[in-house]
């Protein structure tokens, strides 16, 4: 059976959820061979084996952390040469997309970014994408070379599928360009203790209607009652009420949770672009004309300062 390379997104050996989702998709096309790079690479093996990786290629070198993107492209290129895969799958993070695109050019292959589904096809993998702020769904494939495809979080379930997951060292010789962009310093993001925005099953967002940084406590309380991540519109971020890392939309994060709750958000096209593929959408807005109501499964026309705390109390009561 053909092998499919899966690029592993991990933090010091802890595999991030979108990579496990990629393994589910990779198994539809062939046998997943994972590629894990940098500090802790070998520690990823057991989680990857549990979810279907037949092999885990690992490489660690200071270059992966000290220089931007290119060392990882060199490593993936080496993996492609070693394995001759039927496809290369990467998560749709900003960095992995850049790695994917440079790799694709080097190996003379087409690239598809931000797929939301993937199936095997007669002429190679067929990727589903959601375009024009999710107004259209397209089906595409790579027509030249080895398909390189990046997949958005929450595009497939995480499935247990035990496999060998044999660890093999990948030998990488870095290109002359690998050390072109130096990472002078790196400050890890502080954890909020809440689920990761792009990975969360439920996202609770606040917009301009929240009217102040201190009022985001109301949004956070609802999120915590549901075990959800907190998001924000650009208006709320630009006002300085919530960090940019929580922005949902075209120039923020793209989320696709089971449930999205928009509070005091009008539903501008750029916001929709980042949340319209959510399975169930709920909104609280005092303006019944707000465009967000065109998207909702359930909407409450009302003041969020009344509705949201009541909702939080009721959720807590029901959960007991």
């Amino acid at each position, binding site marked *: 059976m053909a092998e499919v390379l899966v690029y592993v997104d991990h933090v010091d050996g802890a595999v991030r959820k979108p990579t496990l989702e990629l393994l589910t998709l990779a198994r539809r096309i062939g046998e997943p061979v994972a590629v894990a790079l940098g500090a802790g690479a070998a520690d990823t093996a057991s989680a990857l084996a549990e979810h279907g990786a037949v092999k885990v290629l690992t490489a660690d070198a200071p270059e992966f952390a000290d220089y*931007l993107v290119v060392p990882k492209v060199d490593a993936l290129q080496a993996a492609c040469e070693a394995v001759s895969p039927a496809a290369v799958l990467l998560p749709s993070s900003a960095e992995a997309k850049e790695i994917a695109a*440079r790799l694709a050019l080097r190996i003379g292959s087409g690239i598809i970014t931000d797929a939301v589904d993937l199936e095997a096809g007669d002429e190679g993998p067929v990727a589903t994408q959601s375009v024009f702020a999710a107004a259209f769904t397209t089906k595409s494939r790579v*027509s030249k070379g080895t398909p390189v495809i990046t997949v958005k979080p929450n595009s497939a379930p995480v499935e247990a599928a035990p496999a060998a997951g044999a660890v093999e060292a990948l030998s990488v010789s870095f290109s002359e360009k690998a050390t072109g*962009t130096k990472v002078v310093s*790196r400050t890890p993001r502080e954890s909020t203790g809440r689920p990761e925005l792009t990975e969360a099953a439920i996202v609770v967002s606040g917009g301009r209607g929240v009217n102040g940084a201190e009022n985001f406590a109301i949004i956070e309380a609802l999120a915590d009652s549901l075990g959800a991540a907190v998001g924000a519109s650009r208006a709320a971020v630009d006002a300085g009420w919530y960090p940019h890392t929580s922005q949902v939309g*075209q*120039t923020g994060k793209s989320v696709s949770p089971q449930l999205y709750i928009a509070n005091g958000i009008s539903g501008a096209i750029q916001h929709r672009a980042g949340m319209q593929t959510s399975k*169930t959408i709920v909104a609280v807005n005092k303006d019944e004309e707000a465009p967000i109501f065109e998207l909702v499964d359930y909407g409450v026309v009302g003041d969020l300062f009344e509705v949201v705390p009541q*909702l939080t109390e*009721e959720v807590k009561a029901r959960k007991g």
Partner: protein
Amino acid sequence: MSLRIVVCVKYVPDATGDRHFADDLTLDRDDVDGLLSELDEYAVEQALQIADEADDAEITVLTVGPDDAKDALRKALSMGADKAVHVEDDDLHGTDVMGTSLVLAKAIEKTGYDLVICGMASTDGVMGVLPAVLAERLGVPQVTLLSEVSVEDGTVKGRRDGDTATEQLEAALPAVVSVTDQSGEARYPSFKGIMAAKKKPVESLDLEDLDIEADEVGLENAWTKVDSATERPARTAGTIVKDEGEGGKQLAAFLAERKFV
């Protein structure tokens, strides 16, 4: 010596318009107004600020696109760029990121450059990968997705807010940079700027000028193929209630019915 900055700008259909596909599954440009991609305005702005700090700098704005794309160049010139290059050719219709990056790379090399500045993504394609591919093609460092950028003594520095960490980056020129919408609001063209832009040079190039063969670009030679595009079915109209004191409870009941609680 003068700092030569090339800013890549894209002419895109207005995101608030009714965008759809043409019969060949490329973007239908006929029914929607076009404009300079808002995300590329940030690139023009950073170029202007870097040029201000430099002793001597020249900003060229570059676009690959149809005849109307001149509007995007005019806007960038009226913001303060010095000159423009427009690559236009009938054979370019339907070109993908690999083809576009080839054309941009050749045009940038022909123009001469120390620093290339791109936007973070185009508002129509939204791949956000072209700057990285361009750096690969040009064989120079990529310093991308910056929320802060500065140039000093032949070095470009910037801050990249990544998924899990914030990084400070540094590379020697020549380099390819892309900037995010966190890099600072773009200026509006002044009346004087708009008048001055009318006299600024716009150079037109075609594929032959760039030694690119027709079979290296265009829809037929794209490395990916769109097989179908379907309009997403309108979401079935949801339930909308007016809060009369019980709105939160009603919403909780809905969430419980859907098994979220």
